[in-house]
């Protein structure tokens, strides 16, 4: 059977046989794949960096220098709310990715705005938690345990802050430039970043808060 039926991309959703796909695959991978893969490598190296902070925290968990321990300090109800916010924002970020691929500007802006609100809510709770810890004399200078705690959780919070700035930038760029190919690549990278932050938060609430308040 002859394979000249390649001009029907609709019957070939993965574009495995389309001519453009063939052209892209005979040479280097498409720009979207190269960009996404490069950013994936960055995310993995970011996780390696976080693993060092996690190792530090785990080693210093008992070194409270006579000060308060996790059991005295952590409010698990707040942590549960933070977790819910970040999880919901990850979900709406996924909806924004779908909206970007279907080129629906309204749904994209709406999903990104909801993602932003959940992210800001997360940061607000984390900020008030940090402020109350410092106010109670349990700041990062109190003990090695608290230094490790503020470094690890604060580093994740900084990532979320940077993510929100990026999110607002993407909303503005889609508004001003539309769904161009380069904007789509940035949206892909942003989605990777945001979902990766949620994965790191799983480790944070498990290791720092749940295991940390058990002892």
């Amino acid at each position, binding site marked *: 059977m002859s*394979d000249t039926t*390649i001009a029907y991309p609709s019957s070939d*959703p*993965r574009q*495995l*046989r389309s001519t453009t*796909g*063939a052209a*892209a*695959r005979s040479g280097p*991978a498409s720009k*979207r*794949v190269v*960009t*996404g*893969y490069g*950013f*994936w*490598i960055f995310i*993995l*190296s970011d*996780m*390696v960096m976080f*693993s*060092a902070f*996690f*190792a*530090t925290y*785990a*080693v210093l968990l008992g070194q409270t220098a006579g000060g308060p321990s996790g059991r005295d300090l952590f409010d*698990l109800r707040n942590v*549960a709310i933070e*977790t*819910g916010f970040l*999880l*919901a924002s*990850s*979900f709406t970020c*996924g*909806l924004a*990715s*779908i909206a970007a691929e*279907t080129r629906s500007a309204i749904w994209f802006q709406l999903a990104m705005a909801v993602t932003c609100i959940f992210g800001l809510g997360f940061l607000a709770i984390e900020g008030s938690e940090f402020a109350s810890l410092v106010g109670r004399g349990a700041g990062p200078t109190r003990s090695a345990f608290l230094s490790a705690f503020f470094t690890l959780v604060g580093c994740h919070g900084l990532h979320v802050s940077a993510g929100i700035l990026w999110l607002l930038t993407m909303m503005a760029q889609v508004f001003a430039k539309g769904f161009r190919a380069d904007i789509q690549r940035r949206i*892909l990278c942003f*989605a*990777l970043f945001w*979902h*990766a932050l*949620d*994965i790191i938060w*799983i*480790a944070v*609430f*498990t*290791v720092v808060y*749940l*295991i940390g*308040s*058990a002892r």
Partner: protein
Amino acid sequence: MTHGQDEVLSRADVAPGDEQAEGSVRLRVLGYLTGLGLAILLTATSFFVAGTDLVWEPSIPVALVVLAIAQMGVHLVFFLHITTGPDNTNNVLALAFGVLIVILVMAGSLWIMANLNHNMMPMDQFMQMQR
């Protein structure tokens, strides 16, 4: 196009985070909803296990770590769309290398520091020697 070429083409890569499914928007939203549901279930179990007296206490940290790893898997599959398909080989290999380094850093640090702690002189004796 020959079948040989066809085989080569089907091994092309897909960007991490990109979904290969050809499904409708409804199906893709359903995929994210499934991930959200599983993640909520695992998170709720984690918080329940941490606060309960029903489970043998020394097993709680292990159970929490297992639940966390399971939830990370759910996020990777349903939110980041990392699959075991041939178009994802590069993404999975990079992830595997990252996981290897993460395990080495964490397990290695804990092991070495526990050893040092065990072998070190208690602090008060050390202070006396300094005099």
